């Protein structure tokens, strides 16, 4: 399938020179006496590098042959993280170096979203929020509700987040994986 400049939008996935790109910016431009163009920024889904390209109106781009699958985290072996494709029940391996930010949130069975390009898993997206038990933090200071006061807490998944002072070890908290911030306590 081909995309035309009128199909351009953020999130569009295209293939150029064998590489998968996702469109992260587009702008219609038309110099006073000239033809119309669309300026774009495209992020290489394999390397993360962002390139700028300008296309003439009507120019066509090859749609990237991507599948988006739901998967569950299984385990990692120091080089790869392994996931189970929920539809095919096949194992999907992603190099850990490609998910350095995300891997800290992975816990067994966590539901994730994987973008696969021609059989090659490219991007693993975490749920926006995860819930995890606090395995270590300094004892709670009940009654201390000072605005903004916080302390570091280590979660079962391995991440350290800043939590309010009144939170205790053993409690389950909710964390935004996009910002790495504590968003609330989960009542059991």
């Amino acid at each position, binding site marked *: 399938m081909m995309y035309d400049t009128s199909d351009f939008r953020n999130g569009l996935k295209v293939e150029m020179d064998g590489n998968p790109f996702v469109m992260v910016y587009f702008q219609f*431009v038309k110099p006073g006496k000239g033809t119309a163009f669309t300026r774009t920024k495209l992020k290489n889904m394999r390397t993360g590098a962002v390139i700028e390209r300008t296309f003439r109106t009507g120019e066509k781009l090859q749609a990237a042959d991507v599948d988006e699958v739901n998967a569950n985290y299984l385990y990692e072996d120091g080089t790869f993280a392994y996931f189970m494709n929920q539809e095919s029940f096949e194992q999907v391996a992603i190099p850990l170096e490609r998910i350095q930010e995300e891997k800290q949130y992975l816990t067994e069975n966590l539901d994730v979203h994987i973008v696969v390009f021609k059989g090659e898993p490219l991007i693993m997206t975490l749920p926006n929020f995860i819930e995890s038990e606090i395995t270590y933090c300094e004892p709670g200071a009940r009654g201390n509700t000072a605005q903004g006061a916080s302390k570091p807490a280590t979660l079962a998944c391995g991440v350290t987040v800043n939590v309010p002072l009144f939170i205790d070890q053993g409690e389950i908290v909710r964390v935004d994986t996009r910002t790495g911030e504590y968003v609330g306590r989960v009542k059991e």
Partner: protein
Amino acid sequence: MQAERLLQRASVVRAIRGWMDTRGYREVHTPALVPSAAFEEHLEAVRVGPAFLHTSPEMAMKRVLAAGLCRIYQIVPAFREEEVGVHHTREFTMLEWYRVGAGTHELMDEVEDLFATCARAVGRDLGSFRRVAVSALQDPSLEPDAWFHRWVETVEPSLTGAVIVHGYPAWQSALARIRGAVADRFEVYADGVELANAFAEETDGSELRRRLDASNAARSRAGRPGHPVDAQFFDAVSRMPRAAGIAVGLDRLVMVLTGSKSIAEVQVGREL
């Protein structure tokens, strides 16, 4: 936020009218509904039954010059099909003025002074203008397609600050006079956004007719309808005196002066 932008827009318009009045420019009104709305190969007019909405008031304002007025301006909606984006809307507001006896250098001085006046009206400063020849920015031997591609991809983003770009290739003359290898026209940019386009006006009707025929031939090759010939314009243009004229995208000027990110932020109710 929106109310503030609209008040700033009103301040800019008031500053323009005051500036025009001080310099002896008379406000004129010409019809938006016209028998032929464009001249150039890459301009698409909005069609209304058998007529069109003007893409700029240029052709009608030249008839006003032919009628004997020497300094005229107009603030008017203009319409262009197939142009929608952060800096484009099908309907936008154009400020256009003409000065008999002037050339592009006089208009450069005027537009710099006017924009500084508009900036002061909203407490801003555009800084001093640079003046750059197109030949210093772009290889003049490039074919049109490659010329525009490189212009959009490389040159425009490099035009930071307030810049006047002058002396375009002759094949981009539109309705400007050609001197040697270049068209005697300039454009004004602010932070890479094109704000204005000015011509030393070509007044030879037969030369303009050749250019219209050439642009219509190119349109026909591209499968586009030709622009109709407006006989009254060709009659008037041969009678008008030597003049220079400039068109300013008023919405874009307000956008730049108010630090807005898109033209939509300085307009209300544009849904088409």
